[in-house]
């Protein structure tokens, strides 16, 4: 029985990735493949953000900084010392984890909007530093990675290679997320999100658990950053660490369903293709128009369906069950 239950739980995950693999065979057009990769990538980034932002309710608006740390760490190791990005991933994780521990521990004293503001400022400081530290990062000119396809270099001749890499990234993030969610840590993080004082009174070391969530979330975001750098093959502070990118990770989780396993994935599937198509269609009409519409959708969705789509669906299911009962 227990075994069947476990299988039942992982069924959506297996089904989802089966569909993704089938899609990877169907989608051949370069533009669509790019959208596919970005969707998987953003789904992974937003899910990583969700661990601290959704489960623990700590609304970080500075996660692009961790993506930037990951991208710069692996790129610099590769360009300057010829270190394989696979080892770069490990270095990225270590640095991102250390930075997040350093910044998070004190910032968790802050709550709600204040926490969000402090992380927004943190992200901006990191971006400004990346811009200023020209000797290391080449400043706003950015760094280009020469294209030398091989698995060891994390570069693929065929775009579909990136599709699979993005898929693996998302799978890793989702497995870690679901493990956390279905464990003591997940329950504790939820309790912290809902009411920190009550959580403490129930024996939860709230600072420790928030730190834990933050470090895992930042590490995964840094891994995403490495992938991003070796997919785009060019990194610069404003393309990588802009607060708009942080906001996007957050927004996807909020639209899909904050603190749910699948919410960020649903959010990414909706937002990325939508914004990419809008960019393609409306980009010709005039600069910025697609973002006006994007912003309007954001405002309307946030106001009208604050629980996110996943929760909206759950509410409907619950109501149906009530009527039946």
């Amino acid at each position, binding site marked *: 029985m227990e075994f069947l239950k476990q299988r039942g739980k992982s069924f959506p995950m297996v089904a989802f990735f089966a569909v993704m693999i089938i899609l990877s065979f169907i989608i051949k057009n370069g533009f669509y493949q790019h959208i596919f990769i970005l969707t998987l990538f953003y789904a992974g980034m937003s899910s990583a953000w969700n661990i601290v932002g959704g489960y623990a309710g700590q609304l970080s608006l500075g996660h692009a900084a961790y993506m930037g740390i990951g991208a710069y760490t692996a790129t610099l190791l590769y360009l300057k010392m010829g270190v394989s990005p696979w080892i770069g991933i490990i270095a990225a994780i270590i640095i991102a984890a250390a930075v997040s521990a350093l910044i998070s521990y004190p910032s968790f004293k802050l709550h709600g909007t204040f926490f969000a503001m402090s992380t927004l400022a943190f992200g901006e400081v990191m971006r400004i530093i990346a811009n200023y530290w020209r000797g290391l990062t080449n400043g706003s000119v950015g760094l280009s990675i020469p294209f030398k396809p091989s698995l060891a270099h994390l570069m693929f001749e065929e775009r579909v290679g990136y599709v699979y890499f993005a898929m693996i990234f998302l799978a890793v993030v989702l497995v870690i997320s679901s493990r956390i969610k*279905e*464990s*003591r840590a997940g*329950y*504790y993080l*939820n*309790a912290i999100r*809902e*009411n920190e*004082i*009550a*959580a*403490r*009174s*129930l*024996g*939860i*070391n*709230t600072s420790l658990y928030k730190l834990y969530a933050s470090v895992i979330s930042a590490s995964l975001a840094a891994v995403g950053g490495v992938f991003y750098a070796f997919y785009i093959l060019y990194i610069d502070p404003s393309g990588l660490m802009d607060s708009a990118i942080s906001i996007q990770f957050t927004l996807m989780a909020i639209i899909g369903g904050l*603190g749910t396993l699948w919410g960020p994935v649903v959010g990414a599937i909706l937002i990325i293709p939508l914004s990419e198509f809008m960019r393609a269609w409306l980009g010709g009409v005039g600069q910025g128009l697609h973002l006006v519409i994007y912003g309007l959708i954001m405002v309307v969705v946030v106001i009208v369906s604050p629980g996110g789509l996943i929760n909206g669906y759950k509410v409907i299911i619950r109501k149906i069950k009530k009527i039946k009962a």
Partner: protein
Amino acid sequence: MILDVKNVSKRFGGLWAVKNVSFSIAENEIIGLIGPNGAGKTTLFNLISGYFPPNEGQVLLNGEVISNLPAHKICQKGLARTFQLVRPFPDLTVLDNVAVGSLARYPRLPEALKKAEEILEFVELDKGKKRFGSELTIAERKRLELARALATEPKVLMLDEVMAGLNNTEVNEMLKIIRAIQKKNITLVVIEHIMAVIMSVSDRIVVMNEGEKIADGIPKDVANDPTVIKAYLGEEELDLA
């Protein structure tokens, strides 16, 4: 003595919210903590449960000093509390709310959920355990809060006005639960405003007024204590039936 409160004081700005209060509780007693509004009862609870440290004095649980520990450690040591303004986790189900408590003793989730079910049965909240914290009535919320604290398997459980705002039937149900908790070998400290209720259930009563302890004894003696009567006079008619 399972809980020793020794000369604790707490000051906010220039005001002493709790001033030099001492009392001891023997294992498995039910202590009623009463006093007029603003007497410092909840502040005393906050001090004991580690919400903030006392400016002076000590609190000992089972002979061990706990007054310098953070709240979560105190809970792990076996002292749990409820809040006057109940704080159920609104977006978690009733079962998950209680499971958060159980996890303090049973780190593995399936076990914690099983224990949580048992506790919900015990407080008779097992029907509708899939509902969300925000969907409950006041009486149910109070019971959920109690269940959650109970799930941490405390030796001492402190209840802050768990009967306030309940109707007669609900009060009687709550009293039944409190007595059943005592049978589980748990020591209880109960803040309550409804005097009649607390008199009937307590082994001993501690009375506070303006931050100080003014009486400590069995309910009958306390009810006849002139200082107690005087402290309550300004507030409302005595309801000691």
